[in-house]
């Protein structure tokens, strides 16, 4: 039996979670929210994490009902992410590992999303669509690695949505993407936008600049409402994601899809994926915001998997890195 604690803070969410052999004992989170029209900046976000991490740690331990002595491994996000945020959180994890004299495990954030999704949904070998503020990847597992089948060639899908939310001055609470989703529900009129699929890859920056440029006049003339634009943007970029996911499934003859990452809790995206899956007799697995959005449990769980498969690292190797590809990690815990 292994009890694992995980620390995540690679972007604007700070999360700490505790798991015991795949059973979630605590999953606590604080989100750094900026005013409408503003994105989060590295310095302020790191400060937010530093100011909150000790209180959040106390809350997590209390919620879990265990004593710190019972914890077997300490895990933290090694990357990818914002440097100053990663380091702020890692410093605490390192200190605790030394204080409690437990092994310290550096975890890849993207892989942690996938493993959390697999744990919660029970899916075995899915094609994975990983969509968040900083990542957009279609992933398939093969020969000990999570292979990136397709990805964005410029900005991430979440980033595209967030930036458009800023143009419309939507609230960042709970997240800009969530507010776009609510607006889109009342959109009706479809604006034709560029649709950019290149091979297995997608591109969003051209779509964003197109809609950013057109929005002011389309809105002031009353031709389109803000709701219509949110709707059109979502319909277009999600269709691109479903298409590339389906292409990967068709190529790998996969019958399961798992959506992970913050944008993965968008219900329209889940609906579209579900329809696609039904059309090809596949099964969709998705999770809700507790596990889709960055959290500490996913780090704890993945660290435990690594620990159980015999992973050990030297103290010198417990650094952070802003760039850390999904396909760099040897997946020692899967056959």
């Amino acid at each position, binding site marked *: 039996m292994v009890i694992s604690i995980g620390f995540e803070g690679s972007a604007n969410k700070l999360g700490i979670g505790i798991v015991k052999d795949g059973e979630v004992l605590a999953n606590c989170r604080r989100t750094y929210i900026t005013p409408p029209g503003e994105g989060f900046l590295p310095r302020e976000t790191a400060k937010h994490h530093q100011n909150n991490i000790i209180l959040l740690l106390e809350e997590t331990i209390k919620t879990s009902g265990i004593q710190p002595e019972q914890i077997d491994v300490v895990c933290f996000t090694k990357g990818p992410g914002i440097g100053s945020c990663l380091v702020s959180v890692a410093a605490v994890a390192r200190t605790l590992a030394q204080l409690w004299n437990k092994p310290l495990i550096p975890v890849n954030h993207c892989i942690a999303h996938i493993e959390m999704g697999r744990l919660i949904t029970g899916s075995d070998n899915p094609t994975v669509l990983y969509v968040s503020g900083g990542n957009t990847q279609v992933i398939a597992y093969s020969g000990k690695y999570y292979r990136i089948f397709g990805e964005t060639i410029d900005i991430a899908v979440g980033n595209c949505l967030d930036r458009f939310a800023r143009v419309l001055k939507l609230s960042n609470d709970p997240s800009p993407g969530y507010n776009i989703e609510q607006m889109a529900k009342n959109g009706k009129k479809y604006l034709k936008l560029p649709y950019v699929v290149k091979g297995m890859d997608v591109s969003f920056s051209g779509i964003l600049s197109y809609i950013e440029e057109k929005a002011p006049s389309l809105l002031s003339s009353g031709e389109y409402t803000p709701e219509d634009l949110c709707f059109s943007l979502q319909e277009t970029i999600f*269709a691109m994601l479903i298409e590339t996911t389906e292409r990967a499934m068709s190529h790998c003859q996969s019958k399961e899809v798992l959506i992970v990452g913050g944008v993965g809790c968008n219900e329209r995206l889940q609906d579209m994926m579900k329809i696609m899956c039904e059309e090809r007799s596949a099964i969709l697995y998705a999770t809700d915001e507790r596990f889709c959005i960055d959290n500490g449990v996913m780090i704890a769980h993945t660290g435990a998997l690594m620990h159980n498969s015999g992973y050990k690292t030297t103290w010198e190797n417990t650094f952070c890195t802003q760039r850390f590809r999904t396909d760099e990690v040897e997946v020692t815990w899967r056959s």
Partner: protein
Amino acid sequence: MELYKQGAESKIFTTTYSDRKAIIKERFSRQYRNELLDLNIRKERTKAEAKAILKCKQGGIATPVIYSLDLNNYKIIMEHINGQTVNDYLTNIKDKQDDNGKLTKLLTNIGAIVGKMHSLGVFHGDLTTSNIIKKEDDTLVLIDFGLSHFNPSVEDKAVDLYVLERAFVSTHSYFSQLFPVILDGYKNAYELDVQAVFNQFQNVRSRGRKRLMIG
């Protein structure tokens, strides 16, 4: 008419056309996407596919013969190619050590037809091992040109190679170290500045690695 395969964007039915074995490739309506977007995509892709198949055929690259095109219903009737996709072939291959050199020959040939296609001025756009059919006599036939266009840039050509490499590595990881054999075949067949394409290929590959990923 019988459903033969379901691809990512189409249904393939087997049929006959003037007594010849044929398939109907139908880009059916996708319920998940907006109707206007759906109609537009299906029309553009059907057109692009028919045009590129013709152009390749004229340039001496093996592609299915087109028997009939029905743009209003997003359907192409084309020759049925007897064989298996390179994806299926590699998945079931027994001789993994390549003792008889068959694999090397196949990979060289894949590179060669891609090089030839690019020399002809065609970008494929979805160049995976599922979209190359290997006939009994080892001839390779290119299919699935929905994302293709003409007059590709060096970047486009690099993207074709990149898509092929990833499709290869992610489903045939066992052979992934053999990808350079494909590049060798390409080099011999490509008639323009191959170094420019290879340099851009390296750039496209490293792009992902350089991108900062947050969240």
